[in-house]
Each structure stands twice: as structure tokens, then as C-alpha cells.
């Protein structure tokens, strides 16, 4: 196996940005808390003789339902531990240097982890801070609707510890969340071999010396025998084959969509081999006329216009933008029943 090799940075692929939005429902406790936050009020829940802030649905000591005995806390509190973030990432809620700290709000018995905007040399255990809330359009009813800043007046917060009367129907019922992560994968050796072959207008496959199966694409192992298939097992594959399976996909709208009309994805078994390429495109024939058993031949993009940039390590037999697709040859079909075990 070649995994003693440290990756060469020149084999890094384009950064992949994983983004997906989703909406979380909050339930009664979190709805009550975030609705109070939207009004500029911090609250906790009294359970087991102590006030937990921000509130939880359960008593972490016992697992019991924490109930709904709401208590006003803050807006001032005391720092008990801190660290400093000199260079925030895009996921941090403030853009300049800031501190994360444990802040125990007045009236609460447990600390919360939150942002403190203060110079590093002012931070210490015991520092008095106060919540500074967003205003107007910036209010979302979220944990990042406020940050802490050094308190101008260190005296105890007025009203902290008093009961909080929650509205019957809290205003904030959901929270929009957004995942935004960036990855840089590197093309594995077999992926580079496969994409280079495509650029040269070739299909290559590797044949397992143990079971004799041939795998076409960026595949470096036999998944049946669990042995490595190195380049000595590699040979050039024919560029004609038979459709063994297909599906017609009717696109639904999604961001970045390229296809808008129903299209075919099919599996093609290459002539003279038992190698099947999955997820292939059919061209030159309406989707309704695609058949299992149909003879097809590969049509390449012109040399110099073959795009393999979207072929990743997981693509196996993906041909990316190197080919136009598979075109029917017009030869008589093979019997479909010959291919029932070669769907993919």
C-alpha cells in the first residue's frame, strides 16, 4: 500500500464548502428563554434548589423534568474562567479579538459560556460584566443576540432572582441554524491515475488476482477479497458496452441545479469484461426509449475540453465532464435477463 507517502500539496483538490441550512424547533424551555432574550431579558429555571441559566429542560443532576419555575437573571454577572481568541473564525459572532468566559449571571447558580468583549489585560476571574443586547432588526431571539462587556456599574443586578412570568405562547418557536464548513481533500493516487486516463481518452480498470473481478474507476482495492489492487493489475478497458440498468430522474428544484428536464442515469457493463460503470449518462435517444440490453459506445468530449475537476476519491467510475455520454450503437439488443445480476 502506498500509504507511507505523505501527500504532495500539488494533489490537493479544490476546496469543498459544505453548507446546509436547517431550522430547529425549540420546545417550551428554549422557546421561553429565547423569547425572553428577544425582549432583552435573561432568565433561568429553578430546579433542585438552584437556578440554572440558561435554562435546561431537565435537571442535569437527576435527569428529572426541570419544570417551568422561571427566574430573572442578570443582566450583570461575574466571570469565573476566561480565554482569549485573538483571531476569530467566520463562525465566531464577533469579528475582532474577544474572550470566551464562564459568566455566572446575578441570580443564577450555574455559569454560562459566552462572549466577553474586553481587552485581554482586563480579563480576570471575578470581573463584573453585563449583557449588551442587539437592537431593532438585529434581534433574532438567539444566544448570539447579546454579548457581555465590562460592567459600567458592578453593583448587583436589579430584579435578579425574581420570578419571571412567561407568556402563554412564547414568540420564538424555532431557530435557524447554518452549517458552513470547508474541506480540502487530496486526490488519492488511484484517483489521479483514473482522471489522467480520462484526459487521454482512455478507461482503465484493475482486475483482482484472487477473484478475477474487474473494477473500473478510481478503485484501488477488491471489496470482495479485501486486497489492494496496484497498478500491476491495471489494463485499458473497452469503450463499448451494454446497458444493464437505468433510472429516469425527474429533477426537483435545488440550488446549483444544472439539469431541468427528466434525464437517464444508467449502468453500463463494458464489452468483454464483467466491469460495470454506474451513474452514466445516455445521449442521442429520448429517456423513454432507453432499454436494458441496449448496446452503447462512449462519446468523449473533445481533447482539451475534458473536465475531471469534479471527480473525487469517492467517485469510483465517475466520468465527470470528460465524456458527453454513452450513445446507442444501433446493434440488436442483448436479452435483458442476462443482466439481472449486473445492475451496478
Amino acid at each position, binding site marked *: 500500500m502506498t500509504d507511507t507517502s505523505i501527500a504532495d500539496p500539488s494533489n490537493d483538490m479544490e476546496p469543498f464548502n*459544505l453548507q446546509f441550512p436547517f431550522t430547529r424547533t425549540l420546545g417550551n424551555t428554549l422557546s421561553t428563554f429565547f423569547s425572553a432574550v428577544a425582549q432583552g431579558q435573561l432568565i433561568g429555571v429553578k430546579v433542585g434548589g438552584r437556578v440554572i441559566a440558561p435554562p435546561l429542560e431537565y435537571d442535569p443532576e437527576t435527569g428529572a423534568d426541570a419544570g417551568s419555575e422561571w427566574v430573572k437573571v442578570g443582566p450583570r454577572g461575574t466571570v469565573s474562567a476566561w480565554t482569549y481568541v485573538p483571531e476569530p473564525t467566520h463562525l465566531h459572532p464577533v469579528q475582532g479579538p474577544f474572550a470566551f468566559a464562564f459568566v455566572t449571571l446575578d441570580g443564577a447558580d450555574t455559569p454560562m459560556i459566552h462572549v466577553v468583549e474586553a481587552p485581554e489585560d482586563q480579563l480576570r476571574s471575578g470581573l463584573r460584566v453585563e449583557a449588551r443586547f442587539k437592537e431593532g432588526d438585529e434581534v433574532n431571539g438567539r444566544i*448570539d443576540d447579546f454579548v457581555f462587556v465590562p460592567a459600567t456599574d458592578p453593583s448587583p443586578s436589579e430584579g435578579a432572582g425574581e420570578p419571571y412570568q412567561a407568556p402563554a405562547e412564547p414568540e420564538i418557536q424555532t431557530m435557524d441554524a447554518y452549517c458552513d464548513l470547508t474541506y480540502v481533500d487530496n486526490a488519492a493516487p488511484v484517483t489521479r491515475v483514473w482522471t489522467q486516463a480520462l484526459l487521454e481518452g482512455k478507461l482503465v480498470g484493475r482486475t483482482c488476482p484472487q477473484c478475477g473481478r474487474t473494477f473500473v474507476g478510481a478503485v484501488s482495492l477488491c471489496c*470482495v477479497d479485501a486486497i489492494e489492487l496496484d497498478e500491476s493489475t491495471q489494463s485499458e478497458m473497452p469503450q463499448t458496452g451494454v446497458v444493464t440498468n437505468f433510472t429516469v430522474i425527474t429533477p426537483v428544484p435545488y440550488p446549483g441545479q444544472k439539469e431541468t428536464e427528466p434525464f437517464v442515469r444508467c449502468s453500463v457493463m463494458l464489452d468483454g469484461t464483467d466491469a460495470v460503470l454506474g451513474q452514466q449518462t445516455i445521449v442521442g435517444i429520448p429517456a423513454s426509449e432507453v432499454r436494458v440490453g441496449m448496446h452503447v459506445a462512449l462519446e468523449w468530449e473533445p481533447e482539451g475540453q475534458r473536465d475531471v475537476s469534479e471527480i473525487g476519491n*469517492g467517485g469510483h467510475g465517475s466520468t465527470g465532464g470528460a465524456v458527453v455520454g454513452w450513445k446507442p450503437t444501433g446493434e440488436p439488443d442483448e436479452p435483458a435477463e442476462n443482466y439481472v445480476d449486473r445492475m451496478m
Partner: protein
Amino acid sequence: MPRTENDIAIVSYAQSPLLRRSENTETEMMLSTVQGAIKAAGLGKGDIGFTVSGSCDYLSGRGFSFVANVDAYGAYPPINESHVEMDGSFAMYEAFVRLLQGDIDTAVAAGVGKTSNSDPATLYTIEMDPYYLTPLGADVASLSALQYRALLDSGKVTERDVAEVVARNRRAAKDNLNAQVSGDFDVDELLAAPYVRNPLRRHDLPPVTDGCAAVVLARGQKAYELCERPVWITGIDHRIEPHLPTMRQDLTSSVSTRLAAEGAGVASGPVEVAEIHAPFSFQELIVREALGLGDDTEINPSGGALAANPVMVTGLLRVIEAAKQIAENGRSRTLAHTTSGPCLQQNLVCILEGDQ
């Protein structure tokens, strides 16, 4: 002590090279490692009763990596397979429990992590509380730094004590061929380094590592058939604390580690070597105290997680390093510890013993 059919041992192990960036995929790292461990036990893929791996698709950023990784087991004819979204040591715990059912006598557990694809400064925010912490971008280094600050404020340890942990692990790692970070470092020079998350310095953080590790377990008499000196797992326990660090009574002591150590029976005999999984240097001191280890226990002869940290593998590597001490170095009782989650949220302790 005579072994019974309910005793379970590690009979072989293997690990891939531990690299800052491997050019191979998770599946490729798995193939050579898993099959290497199976071969080292004198077995073939068809001889294994149960397989379980630990990995996380969010590390490599490739969806269903954990499914692709099953190819490394050669899953045809179909195999009995499981997966945990945790370190491979927790996968080993599942294999251990599975073997206790008594109907099979071999199992493989593996961990794999292609960590270098992702950015640790942002990735681990999504493992935090989704309402109270993730929206703040609460990153694992910041949360660890808060725990470190609490430990310093408690007066139990000093920054010098922690720098000495770093120096000792890096020195020990000089003998570990797989270490990424090793060498002789002066404590005063370490203390002069700038903070990346006050009071954490760069050297208090683990390196980014790609890698894989695997162990083969066998039950009862089968263990003696497969190796000369089985490494018996005589105690194992795993305890979890609340995921919000602020909901734990005291971040400077690890209650879950103490309970897991009690459950695993740590105190019922001397511990010659302990491999502690402390991805952030100061955590070794918290864990060591919670395990109740004396000064005669050697800590992390491998260099620990500060020497190499393939996430999802580092804990299983602690098990393998502790097992090596018995299988290869003539020790008779060692300990492996694994942690998971922010600020030592989850802890697994296992006691390994060789026959006298």
C-alpha cells in the same frame, strides 16, 4: 489466574503510518491496517465473527465514508458489522460486549480518521450544544482553554507543571517511530511561547494527524490459539458527563474518569504503565489524578496524543500502546484511557493484563 471462556483478549494489532496528511483515503488506510491485524493473528477475513469501526464522516468531509470503509473488511459474503461515530476504542468496547454473548470467538475493532481534510478550528463547533454553544462558534480549543484556566485558578497545577507534561511526552515520543512531534524541549522555552488561546500555547494542542489502527479480539481458549501472549482485557468501563461543560460540578476533576476507573478495577493491582488520552496537555494531569495512579506508574511512553492525534484513532492507539507493553515488553498490568467530547466529557478506562 486461569482464564475462562468469558475472558477476552487482544491477540493482534496494527496501525497505519501516522501522518500530517496521508495521500490515501480512509478506506485505503483501513484496508492495509485491518487486514494487517487480521493476518497478524493468523486469520483470514472470513474467520472474523464481528467487525466494528469508529469514524466520523465530518472529518474527511466525504458523506458515507463509513460505508465505503466497509470495503476494507471484504464484506462479501456479507459480514456482521457495526459502526460507532466515536474513537476506535469505543468500537473495541462494543466488540468486547459482543464477544461476551458467547456465540462467536473473534472480532475486529478499528478506528480511522482522515483529519487533515478539515479545519479543527471550525469543525468541532458542530459537536457542541446546538442552541447555546454552536451559534457562538464555541471551538474545542477555547473550551479546553476555559478548563485549563479553571485548573490554574484552582491552584492544583501551574503552567510550568503543564509545560513539563509537554516536554515529557515529546521526549518519550522520540522512541515512537510513528510520532509526528517529538524531541527534547526546554520547559522555560516552552513557557516563553505565545498563547493561542490563553492559557493554551501551541504546544499544548495536539497535532493534526491522518491514520488508522485496528485490534483483533478473541475469547477464551481461542486467544491462546491465535497468539503466544494474549493481552487480557480484565476491566473496562465508560462513563459520560453532561455535554455542557458548565453543567459539571467541577471541571478541574474528572468524575467520569474516576467512576470508569472504579468500574474497570484500576485500584485492585499495581499499574505499571498508563497510556492517557489527553489531546490538550493539561488534561493529562486531571485524568491522572482521577485514575488514582501513583508515582510508580509510567505515563505515556508513546508520547500520547501530543505526539500524534488521528481523531477517532488516538484512543485505540492508547489501547494498542498499553497492549504492546504486555505483549512485547514483558509488563503484566497496564492501563489505557480514552476521552471524547469537550473538556473530557466522556472517558473510557480499560485494564490490560498478561498471564503470569
